[in-house]
C-alpha cells in the first residue's frame, strides 16, 4: 500500500463519514418535519388552553442561578413575575457574585432576610443568607451562597425549592409569558415524564417592556445571525427528532423543567463538569434504563425562552469550547452506554450519534477539508472529486438550515418578517464558508482544554434589553 493509496483511502473514509452524516441529517429532518407539523395541528385543538380552573396546576419552582448578572437580573425576574401561571416561586441563587447582582435584587424587590432551615437533599456549598419577599403575589427567594459554580447553585436551588417540579433558567434568559403553561403540558399527559426541554430563541435584537418581548428585529451582526440559524437547526430539527425516540441527550441549561424527585434520585447536578445540563439528562436516562423504570424525557417546541448569544468572537470561542468540554465529560462518564442494547434507543442511537457525529465531528471536519484540499494540490485526486466533496459538504448544510428557517417561519408566524426570512436564508449560505469551520476550530480547543474540577461560569457579556 503506497502513500497515494493511503491518502485516497482517507479521502474515501471522509466521504463515507459525511455520507453517513448526511443520512442522519436527512432522516432527522424528515422525522422532525412530520413531528412538528403534527405537534402544531394537535395543539390547535387539544383543549388544555380551555381549562379555566387553574387551582389544580402543578406548582413550579423557578431556579435562577446568577453570577455577575447585574445587567439583566432585574429584567429577567420581572419577566418571571409576568408569567401566566397560577403557582410559582422564584428562587435566585447568587453564587458569590463579585458585582452588585445581589444588592440590585434586594433593593428592587425589597426582600427581607429570613432565617430558614434548608431541607438538604443534595450536597451543596454553604449558604450565607436567605432573603424572601412576596411581589405581585409571587414568592421571591434570594439565596446568597459561597461560590461553587452553576451546578452547585442549581443544587442549592433544588434544596431550597418547595414544589415538585422545578425549572432551571439562566439569569440572562427571558421566558415568554405563556411558556410555563406550555412546558408543563407533557407532565399532564403522562405521569412518566421526568424532564421537558424548551425551545431557545435568540433575543439580541429584541426590545422588552414590562418583562415582555414587544419587538424583534432581524439582527444586523453576522455572528448573531449565524447563531440564530444554528439555534433554529438544533431546536427545531435535532431535538424534535430525538424526542420521538425518547432519546434526547440534551435539555438546554437555559430552560428546562424537571421532576424534582427524579433529579434527587440521581444525585442532582454533577458539580465538577462544565456541561451540567447534558450530564444530568444522560444520568437520568442511565438511571431509568438501568432500573427498568418507565420514564419519558420530552421536548416542547412551543415553550419559548429568549436568550442572548455572544456578539464577540472571543466570547463565542470560550462558550463553544465550554460546551464541547461539557459534552465530552457527559459522554465519557457514561461510556458504558455506547452501543449497549440494554439502554435502548439511547445506547444504540443517540449516544453513538453524539460521539460519532457531534463530539468528533469538528476534528474530522477540519481534517477532511485539509486532507482533500491537500490531495488535490498534490494531484492525488481530480478536480471533479474535490468539487463534488465540497459542494456536497456545503449544500447539505445549507439545505438543512433552509428547512429550519422556513419551518420556524411556518410555525411561529409572528417571529420573523418576510424580509428577515430572506435575509437569514441568504446568510445561511454564507454560514458554511467560514463560520462553521471557525466553530469547529473552537470546539477542537476542547480536546486540549479539558480539566476536571473546573466549575467556571462562562463569561458572557450582557446587554440590557429595557
Amino acid at each position: 500500500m503506497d502513500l497515494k493509496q493511503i491518502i485516497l483511502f482517507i479521502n474515501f473514509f471522509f466521504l463515507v463519514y459525511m455520507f453517513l452524516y448526511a443520512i442522519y441529517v436527512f432522516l432527522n429532518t424528515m422525522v422532525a418535519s412530520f413531528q412538528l407539523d403534527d405537534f402544531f395541528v394537535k395543539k390547535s385543538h387539544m383543549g388544555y388552553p380551555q381549562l379555566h380552573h387553574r387551582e389544580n396546576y402543578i406548582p413550579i419552582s423557578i431556579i435562577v442561578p446568577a453570577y455577575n448578572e447585574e445587567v439583566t437580573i432585574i429584567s429577567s425576574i420581572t419577566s418571571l413575575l409576568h408569567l401566566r401561571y397560577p403557582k410559582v416561586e422564584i428562587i435566585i441563587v447568587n453564587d458569590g457574585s463579585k458585582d452588585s447582582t445581589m444588592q440590585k435584587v434586594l433593593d428592587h424587590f425589597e426582600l427581607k432576610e429570613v432565617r430558614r432551615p434548608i431541607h438538604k437533599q443534595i450536597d451543596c456549598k454553604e449558604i450565607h443568607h436567605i432573603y424572601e419577599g412576596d411581589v405581585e403575589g409571587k414568592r421571591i427567594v434570594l439565596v446568597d451562597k459561597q461560590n461553587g459554580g452553576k451546578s452547585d447553585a442549581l443544587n442549592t436551588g433544588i434544596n431550597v425549592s418547595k414544589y415538585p417540579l422545578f425549572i432551571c433558567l439562566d439569569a440572562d434568559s427571558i421566558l415568554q409569558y405563556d411558556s410555563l403553561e406550555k412546558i408543563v403540558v407533557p407532565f399532564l399527559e403522562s405521569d412518566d415524564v421526568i424532564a421537558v426541554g424548551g425551545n431557545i430563541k435568540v433575543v439580541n435584537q429584541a426590545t422588552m417592556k414590562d418583562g415582555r418581548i414587544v419587538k424583534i428585529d432581524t439582527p444586523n451582526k453576522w455572528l448573531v445571525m449565524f447563531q440564530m440559524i444554528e439555534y433554529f437547526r438544533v431546536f427545531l430539527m435535532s431535538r424534535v427528532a430525538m424526542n420521538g425516540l425518547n432519546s434526547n441527550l440534551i435539555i438546554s441549561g437555559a430552560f428546562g423543567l424537571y421532576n424534582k424527585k427524579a433529579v434527587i434520585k440521581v444525585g442532582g447536578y454533577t458539580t465538577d463538569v462544565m456541561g451540567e445540563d447534558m450530564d444530568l439528562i444522560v444520568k437520568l436516562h442511565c438511571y431509568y434504563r438501568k432500573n427498568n423504570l418507565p420514564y419519558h424525557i420530552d421536548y416542547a417546541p412551543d415553550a419559548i425562552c429568549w436568550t442572548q448569544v455572544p456578539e464577540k468572537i472571543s466570547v463565542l470561542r470560550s462558550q463553544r469550547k465550554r460546551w464541547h468540554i461539557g459534552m465530552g465529560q457527559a459522554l465519557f462518564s457514561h461510556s458504558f452506554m455506547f452501543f449497549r442494547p440494554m439502554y435502548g434507543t439511547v445506547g444504540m442511537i443517540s449516544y453513538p450519534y453524539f460521539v460519532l457525529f457531534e463530539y468528533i465531528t469538528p476534528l474530522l471536519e477540519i481534517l477532511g477539508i485539509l486532507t482533500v484540499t491537500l490531495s488535490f494540490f498534490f494531484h492525488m485526486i481530480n478536480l471533479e472529486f474535490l468539487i463534488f466533496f465540497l459542494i456536497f459538504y456545503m449544500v447539505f448544510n445549507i439545505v438543512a438550515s433552509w428547512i429550519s428557517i422556513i419551518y420556524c417561519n411556518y410555525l411561529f408566524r409572528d417571529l420573523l418578517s418576510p424580509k428577515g426570512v430572506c435575509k437569514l436564508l441568504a446568510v445561511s449560505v454564507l454560514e458554511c464558508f467560514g463560520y462553521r469551520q471557525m466553530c469547529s476550530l473552537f470546539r477542537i480547543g476542547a480536546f486540549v482544554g479539558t480539566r476536571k474540577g473546573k466549575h467556571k461560569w462562562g463569561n458572557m457579556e450582557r446587554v440590557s434589553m429595557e
Partner: protein
Amino acid sequence: MDLIYFSIIFFFVVLFLVILYLVFSKVKQAMDHRRVSQLENEMQPIVDKYMQLESGSIISEDEMDNLRKKVQAKAGLQAFNSIYFARVKQDGLTEKLHQLVTHVIDFEMLNNNRIVRNKYRKSYILYLCAEYYMNSEEVTNFALESLDDPSLYVRNNALRVLRNTGNVDTMMEAYRRISKGKSYFNNKVIVDFMDSFCGDVQELNKALASHIAEFCPKIKRGILDHFTNRRISEYADEMLQFITTSSDKEIIIAGIRYFGVVHKQEAYPFIVENFKSKDYEMRAVCARAIGLYPCEETITLLHEYIKDANWFVRYNCAFTLFRLEEEDIFNKDSSIRKVLCEKDNFARDIMIYTLYSKGLINSDHDQVKLARFQIENVEKEERRDGFKTNHLVH
C-alpha cells in the same frame, strides 16, 4: 461511488420537496385565510342580525339556508368558528347564540367536514362539539365511546363534551367508563372537569358522593380533591365513612386534606391516628389539616411532631402552630415560645423561620424581637455571621 452519488441526489430532491411543501403550505394557508376572512365578512351580518332580534323568525329561511350551506364547507366552518368564538369571548355563551348554533350546526355536518387531517378528525370534532355545547344523544354516545380511544387528546376532548352537556347521569357514566378502562387521565383533568361542570353542580356532587365507592382510586381521589376545592361540606359524613375504610394512601391523603378544609369533629380521631403514621407524607398532610381542630391535644401533637425527622412535617407543624397561636403569640405559656426554648435545633429553626416569614422577626430587629421571646439558646455567632442551616440527609 455511484450509490453515494445517487443517494445524495435522492436526499437533495426529497429535502427540496420538503421545502417546497412548506412554502406551498404557507401560500395555501394565506389563500385559505383570505377565503375564511371573506366568508366571515359574508356571515357576520347574518349572525349580528340574528343576535339582535327578539326571535329568529324574522331572519328569512333563505338567509339561514345560505348560512347553513356556507358552514358545510371547511372554510365556512372555520369562518363560523371564528365569529362564534369572538362572540363567546365578548358576551359569554348566551341562550340566543346557542340557539343559532343548533340551527346551523349539527353532528353529522361536523362529522363530514374535512377541517383537519384524518388523524385528528375525531379529536377536533369532539373539540368543536364541546365548544358548541352540543348535547344530543348522538354526540353524547360518541363522546362516551371516545373515552376509551388510544389518543389522549380524543379522551380529554370527549370528557369536555360530556362536562359541557351538563347532564349528571352522563358524567357519572363517563366516570364509570374511565374506572373500568385502562386509559390514562391526568388527575388535574379529572378534577378540573368536576370543578367546572356545566350543569347542576349540586346534583353532580350528590351523585358523586353516593357512588364514590364504584369508581377507581383515581376518580375517588378526584372527587375528594373536587370537594376540597369547592369546600363542599354536605357529604362530609359519607366522605369520612369512605376514607376510614380505605387502605389507599393517596385517597387517605386526599381525605385528610378535605377534612383540613371542611370541619368535621368526627374526623379528628382519624387525623390524629394518621398523624402517627410511618409515612412522612401522611404526617405532613395531617400537620396541615389538624389546624382546623384547635384544642389542647392538637397543640400537644404539633409540639411533638415539630421535632419530626422529616422536614416537611416540621415545616407544616410550625406554620399550623403559628396559625393557631397567632393571637397570643407572646404569651409566656404559648407553644411557640416553648418550641423556641427547645434544645432541638431543627424544631427551633423551623419555628424561627415561620416567625420571619410572617414578618414577626426581621433581620434589622432580630435581636430585639428574639429577646421578647426570651430565647436562651440562640448562639451569638449565629446572629453575627449569618446562621447555620440544618441539614437532614435521608
